[in-house]
């Protein structure tokens, strides 16, 4: 096994990567995947030299990130998707962006584009039978939500297959970041997914800071982590509200809505934006906690902490909601592992995967959080896990606010070194966010890859819908609460 082992946010020189011959490359890739590593990136580091590929794999047991390089003389290779379904989307992306042809791919489909090549309309997966009917939903939906197209193959009320087509929100963020000026880069990373502003800005700043070897003060790191936990709390509350709304439990949904407002308003106290835009700068944060701000935030959070326990109790002790939640949309642990699900969705299926714990970064290196996970893999697990994570996040915030380290909030950043790279991972509220930055000979960014947790988890939603009633789809969808924009980039 020839691979480069690095840690989260550890800068390395591109020349350290062993670039292997095609056969050797795929052999070691298969070996690593067989050992239970998860793929988090598969792309050419230099778009000008597309025959050189790297595969980035994360090992949650050793906290190492493995990087394998390979040189392909032709842009085609034998597909691994049938053996390792988690590679499915990465191979499709490789085909779509760089023209690599994965041979014998089970269902080569566009990730973000309308069709594969040419003007041939895309052929949806279809079950041929007189009794199967097809239901198409979206991309324009009845509610104010993001666009996405869902194609169901149903037998009566039962769904046999769900195909999800995304890409309507594609803005080309990865290439925009390469071209943008430094101040705009942060703005771009903040708008990858509107509800994970902090998670993505954190991953981006961490990538750039690691590349330039900038030291961040502990105070700035703690403020970043507090902001991240505030975001996690707010978004989990809003997902729970959405799920209550989908089962028509008006009282819970409006109460969660009220509490979420209190949490995002706390974030606005700190940085002026309810979603945390403008908080992150290279080298630290732009805004510091004052006594008054801390007081308001603490009093807000105490209200939330007390009230939310009551609503959880109401929601999870109501027979009606338990009937809807339990055994609905089950994703087994084996399937979740095979598909490479991440974050909240993986933890609901009994996989203990949390970047804050396995690849600790920033303040989580010094103040670890507890890992929560449930094993049933149904809507109930995904809902109840959120309540546990909300509690854990709020405890973290209370502890950190109590003992906020002194120090500057911002340090100067130096220029980027040439021929270097970094893999920066953070844990957004949906799961693992991976930003990976690669510089060229002059020290300018030549490749910037982003992986939102939604990239893995949309396939989890398809899995969850198998043999589930079509009327439960909105509830399942909300229980994953995935981002369209984060997937489409």
């Amino acid at each position, binding site marked *: 096994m020839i691979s480069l082992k690095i840690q989260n946010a550890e800068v390395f020189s591109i020349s350290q990567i062993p670039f292997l011959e095609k056969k050797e490359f795929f052999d070691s890739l298969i070996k690593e995947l067989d050992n239970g590593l998860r793929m988090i990136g598969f792309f050419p580091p230099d778009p000008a030299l597309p025959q050189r590929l790297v595969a980035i794999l994360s090992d949650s047991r050793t906290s190492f990130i493995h990087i394998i390089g390979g040189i392909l003389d032709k842009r085609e290779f034998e597909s691994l998707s049938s053996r390792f379904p988690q590679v499915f989307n990465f191979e499709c992306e490789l085909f779509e962006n760089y023209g690599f042809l994965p041979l014998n791919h089970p269902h080569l489909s566009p990730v973000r584009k309308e069709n594969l090549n040419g003007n041939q309309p895309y052929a949806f997966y279809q079950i041929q039978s007189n009794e199967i009917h097809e*239901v198409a939903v979206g991309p324009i939906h009845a509610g104010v939500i993001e666009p996405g197209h869902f194609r169901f193959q149903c037998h009566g009320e039962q769904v046999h297959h769900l195909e999800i087509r995304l890409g309507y929100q594609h803005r080309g963020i990865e290439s925009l970041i390469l071209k943008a000026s430094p101040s705009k880069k942060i703005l771009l990373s903040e708008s990858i997914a509107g509800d994970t502003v902090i998670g993505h800005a954190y991953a981006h700043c961490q990538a750039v800071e690691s590349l330039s070897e900038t030291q961040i003060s502990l105070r700035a790191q703690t403020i970043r982590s507090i902001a991240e936990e505030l975001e996690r709390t707010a978004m989990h509350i809003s997902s729970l509200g959405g799920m209550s709304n989908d089962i*028509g*439990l008006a009282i819970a949904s*409006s109460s969660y809505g*009220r509490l979420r407002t209190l949490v995002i308003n706390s974030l606005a106290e700190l940085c002026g934006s309810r979603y945390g835009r403008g908080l992150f700068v290279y080298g630290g944060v732009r805004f510091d906690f004052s006594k008054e701000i801390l007081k308001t935030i603490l009093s807000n959070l105490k209200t939330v902490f007390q009230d939310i326990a009551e609503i959880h109790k109401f929601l999870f002790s109501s027979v*009606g909601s338990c009937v809807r939640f339990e055994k609905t949309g089950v994703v087994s642990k084996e399937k979740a592992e095979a598909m490479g699900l991440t974050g909240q969705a993986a933890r609901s299926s009994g996989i203990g995967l949390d970047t804050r714990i396995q690849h600790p970064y920033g303040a989580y290196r010094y103040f670890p959080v507890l890992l929560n996970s449930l094993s049933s893999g149904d809507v109930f697990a995904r809902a109840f896990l959120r309540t546990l994570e909300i509690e854990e996040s709020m405890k973290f915030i209370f502890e950190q606010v109590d003992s906020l380290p002194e120090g500057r909030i911002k340090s100067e950043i130096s220029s980027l070194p040439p021929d270097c790279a970094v893999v920066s991972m953070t844990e957004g509220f949906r799961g693992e966010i991976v930003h990976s930055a690669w510089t060229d000979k002059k020290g300018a960014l030549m490749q910037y890859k982003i992986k939102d947790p939604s990239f893995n988890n949309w396939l989890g939603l398809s899995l969850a819908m198998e043999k589930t009633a079509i*009327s439960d789809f909105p509830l399942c969808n909300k229980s994953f609460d995935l981002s369209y924009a984060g997937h489409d980039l």
Partner: protein
Amino acid sequence: MILVLSPLFSGIVNKQKNFFTGRIGAPVLQPYYELFKLFKKETLHAKTASFISRITPLVHFTAILSAAAVLPVGFSAPLISFEGDIILFAYLLSLSRFFQILAAMDIGSSFEGMGASREASFAVFVEPIFFFTLGSIAFITGLTSISSIYDSIVLNNISYLVFIFVCSISFFILAVTECSRMPVDDPNTHLELTMIHEVMILDNSGFDLFLYHYSSSIKLFIFVILETSFFGSLGGGNRVLEIGIFILIVFFLSTALAFVETVTARFKMKNIPQYLLFATAIGVLNLLIFTFTQ
């Protein structure tokens, strides 16, 4: 009176629902504004629709309106009344449903087909409830006209009072299902995959939609009246007292409806038949117990 007052009832339920969730909510008269808005709008038809989709809104509306005519509103005599109009009433409602299902299939959208199949299968379970409540009273009294059935209800002995009360409970379940309210259907949902009734009118607009909305609020009000009328004899023939009781029970029902909609979750689609069979079972047991205790 039904024509004027029925949207008001929907408005009251919505207001109370908002009150329970701590919001201000739309004005009580909002359903009137919405109906007026739809009335003014242009009607568009789907390209795939045949004449069935065009006539259905009118048929639907007329059927419901005629059904309303046999009802005793506020304990006063109905417009039309004859022997056997209970059957007419039940099948006028079925007629309206039948045409709505036809129209939904006619348009040819996959959602509407889904909604139609759901509506048709639940209708099978709904009909027995009706006949085991109102029908069982008819059976006991030997009368077959709705107004005379109601006139014959005299709540003077305990077993009869219990009988009527239990009837009113399964009737409430019937009303909730027929009018597609929670926990069977969610009138406020925007999710086309979970809707039952609402999904069938997705492709209607303007005047047609006005007719649908108007007739569904009339339908809700019809069931409220049927429910209220069980207790008409409590007024003891005094008009003022009767109307007082009428208003009180209507208000009580709207509160009950709003409360149920706030604190219960919607059922799983496959559990709805069980719920409806439960209401039928109540009706059957009720009838048996009453006959054996007499």
